[in-house]
């Protein structure tokens, strides 16, 4: 019961290597940009973290599209949950031991677990998907970028522990600000859906890369808005700009997605309302 369509590589207009570069470079720029600019300019710069997360989300969705096109044998959602599951483990590890290098360590270790899962899937579980190893590595790393990016935009930093000066908390860390408060669950579901949903919603014989990625941008923007709402109630990040930019990205990407849907549809016809009882008689 393949839910992913017929086996075979997916046709892509944008080469995957460009998307990988976009995901890693954009993601890290966003995360580090938010970290430094929140200190230098002000808490409202925390929106950059969510922009980094969107880069990660688009990368993840593109990788899911490539691997799920072979037919995973189970639903596409499983791979998104796997990405975020690995991402959570690697992010906790990376941010806890890494300090300023935390996001990089998180991405490296997420890729490592992803690599191991990919190799095991092909060698032990005999899934036989040629790009499984590369795609699992990519998806896990994208999951880690998404988690670190959204956390950074929620609390304005990716430092794991509170920064305490003379007994006063001057900056909340990920441990108290995101994990203890439970916002990590929001990140888990919003980020996971953003990675798994685009391909799951668009799959089929006429699936096109640009339409799926437009959907990924749109889902990323929703995750950004959610992160902005959380940021309005956390003390060291400001949410209004995050929400505004998120809504703008959502509007642009949703209209783009709608245009692509109309382009790919054979025909769009209005059926009108159901006839009333009198009209039927």
């Amino acid at each position, binding site marked *: 019961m393949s839910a992913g369509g017929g086996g075979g590589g997916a046709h892509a207009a944008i080469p995957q290597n460009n998307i990988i570069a976009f995901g890693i470079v954009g993601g890290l720029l966003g995360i580090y940009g938010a970290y430094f600019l929140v200190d230098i300019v002000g808490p409202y710069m925390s929106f950059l973290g969510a922009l980094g997360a969107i880069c990660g989300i688009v990368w993840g969705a593109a990788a899911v599209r490539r691997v799920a096109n072979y037919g995973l044998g189970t639903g596409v959602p499983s791979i998104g949950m796997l990405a975020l599951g690995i991402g959570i*483990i690697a992010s906790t590890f990376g941010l806890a031991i890494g300090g300023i290098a935390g996001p990089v360590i998180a991405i490296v270790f997420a890729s490592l677990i992803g690599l191991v899962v990919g190799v095991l899937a092909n060698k032990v579980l005999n899934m036989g998907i040629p790009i499984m190893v590369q795609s699992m590595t990519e998806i896990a790393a994208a999951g880690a970028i998404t988690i670190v990016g959204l956390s950074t935009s929620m609390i304005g930093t990716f430092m794991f522990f509170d920064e305490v000066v003379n007994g006063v908390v001057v900056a909340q860390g990920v441990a108290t600000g995101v994990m203890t408060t439970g916002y990590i669950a929001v990140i888990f579901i919003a980020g996971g859906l953003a990675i798994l949903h685009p391909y799951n919603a668009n799959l089929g014989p006429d699936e096109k890369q640009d339409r799926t990625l437009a959907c990924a941008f749109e889902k990323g923007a929703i995750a950004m808005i959610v992160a902005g709402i959380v940021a309005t109630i956390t003390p060291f990040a400001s949410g209004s700009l995050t929400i505004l930019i998120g809504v703008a990205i959502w509007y642009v990407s949703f209209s783009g997605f709608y245009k692509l849907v109309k382009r790919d549809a054979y025909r769009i016809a209005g059926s009108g309302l159901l006839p009333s009882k009198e009209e039927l008689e």
Partner: protein
Amino acid sequence: MIDIVGIITEDILNILLITLGGVLISLGVHLIPVGGAPAAMAQATGVGTGTVQLAAGAGLTGLVTAGFMMNVTDSMGLIIASGTVGAMIMISVTMLVGQWIYVYGVGCPAASAKVKYDPITKDRQDLYVSQGTEGHAIPTASFISGIIGAGLGGFGGSLIYYSLLSIENGLPEVDFIGIASIFAIGLFFVNAVIPSYNIGGTIEGFHDPKFKRFPKAVVASFVTTFLAAIMGVVAIGGM
């Protein structure tokens, strides 16, 4: 700098227990009757949703019940028993309500297409399987198999949670519980997806021929969870 080797040698027992928990979750998923999308249309035996959703639903309930028991006692046995029973109750309710919908809503009898006679009740199965389907609803064998599977999953999940909370560190308790729970959830999802790829998305329970594939998923889960457990123990132990 964190003394990585020191933490690993000190907490080697916790690493092994976490790995065992992951392996138990992986084994448990093989026993849960997952029907996937075909079962949602009553065209295959099992509950009509994916492995991840079913295992996560049962496993997370297990974590909640284990966490609740942890408020009251420190006894490892009671905490793990609470998690196990919580997951078993959750899967039973899910399967029971699903069964009502299949029987009273869709109007089909519970039947397995993989075996001729139900291994527990010895009832004939193949006569009741509609043409063009691979069985429908949840026969007795699948139901019991599901309860055992969720029990193993809940056992594994609460074992991971308990082992993570046994690591010595300098964190305030509130933060520690938050981090340990989210880490356990991450591990749970990883170990629910790996067997899901092994069984190709659908399985009826222990009587399904696909169940024989479980050693592969157990090996895969063992390696992955071991790696993740080291990372978790180093991260939490170094705090």
